């Protein structure tokens, strides 16, 4: 008798206001990518170039929420992913982009695009295709419910592997002390 193949877990990933460092860390699981590909099937991700997220088991989101498009993408992930994971410092705390949060957004744009000599020629960008920046940068959990968090800048490949394999095996993800890093 043949055992039916176990259906692969559907995984979507995206980077909002992030630097793709967390995605690089995901790739940093190196040779474990091959067993991972036997366990998961990628939906929307920079690795597949699929533009919209379909129904998924796990969504991995890197980066905080800094503009209107980030809000749409985050809500699309939450609506489609059974389990949503905030990946890395920016998704969890706002991170580097949130370092502008104590400044006035208008003054920031003015300083960069009008006052600062090297960029001041074109004025403040106003193309209709550009998503509008939010007044403040937000961590994911301030916009939608988040199920799990993998801290770190970036989280280590080992931490990402630990959480993914725990979830795929049906275990509650547990990070030991040495994998709970904020830097």
């Amino acid at each position: 008798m043949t055992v039916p193949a176990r259906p692969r877990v559907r995984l979507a990933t995206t980077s909002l206001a992030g630097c793709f460092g967390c995605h690089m860390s995901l790739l940093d699981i190196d040779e474990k990518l091959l067993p991972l590909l036997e366990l998961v099937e990628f939906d929307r991700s920079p690795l597949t170039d699929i533009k919209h997220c379909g129904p998924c088991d796990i969504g991995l989101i890197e980066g905080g929420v800094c503009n209107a498009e980030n809000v749409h993408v985050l809500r699309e992930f939450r609506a489609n992913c059974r389990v949503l994971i905030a990946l890395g410092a920016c998704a969890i705390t706002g991170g580097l982009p949130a370092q502008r949060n104590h400044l006035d957004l208008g003054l920031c744009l003015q300083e960069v695009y009008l006052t600062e000599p090297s960029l001041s020629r074109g004025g403040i960008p106003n193309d209709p295709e550009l998503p509008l920046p939010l007044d403040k940068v937000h961590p994911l959990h301030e916009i939608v419910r988040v199920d799990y968090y993998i801290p770190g800048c970036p989280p280590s490949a080992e931490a990402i592997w630990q959480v993914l394999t725990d979830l795929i095996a049906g275990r509650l993800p547990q990070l030991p002390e040495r994998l709970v890093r904020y830097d």
Partner: protein
Amino acid sequence: MLDGAPVPFEPGQTVLQAALAADRYIPHLCYHPEFRPHGSCKLCTASVGGRLVATCTTPAEAGLVVDSETPQLRDVRRTLVQMLFAEGNHFCPSCEKSGNCQLQAQGSDLGVTTAGFRHLYPDRPIDASHPDAWIDFNRCVLCELCVRASDEVDGKHVFALAGRGLTKHLIVNAPSNRLGDTTFAASDEAMQVCPVGAILPKRVGFAVPIGSRRYDQRPVSAQALDDAPRPAGRSP
């Protein structure tokens, strides 16, 4: 009795001091063995005779029943650390104290993966007026260790806390409120004792690489037991 096991104590010791001397860890942040207890961070909260109290300010007595390692107290401590993270601007990836920071080390040890709360992102200044040290008020957790060190050891009274509640903040004892206008020196105990990255020496940034620092090697729960003062003849 701590978590069901007897713990010896000497008169004058607090519950936390007796526990640490007996190689029994209770998480703490504003307590430092060299200074009088402050009781502000509440991380050392335990159930003493059924009441939740700060063990760093509770005198050890015969017959006390203390419960510390319970799931409920672990949750309480985790929440306290989360609130400290959400209240300031603790951006670990760019902080020179990362890996040597006790707030961060408590978070790792307690399994804190998110601040959970809405971050306040307060607008706080940086004081770089001193030639050898700088203060980043974004990272201050109001533990008063620099205040105690400057008062009790350095005898300079350089620091104090002002305001109440959310407006409470660290101030510097100079009409200009600038560290450079005080008698503060880089060799002061107040310089060494900051548990977070609020008071830092200048010109030593990242001399020890991330990954080779104090709490990169061992969790704070193990380090704190190594550091605890013990009566002569008793080893950890």
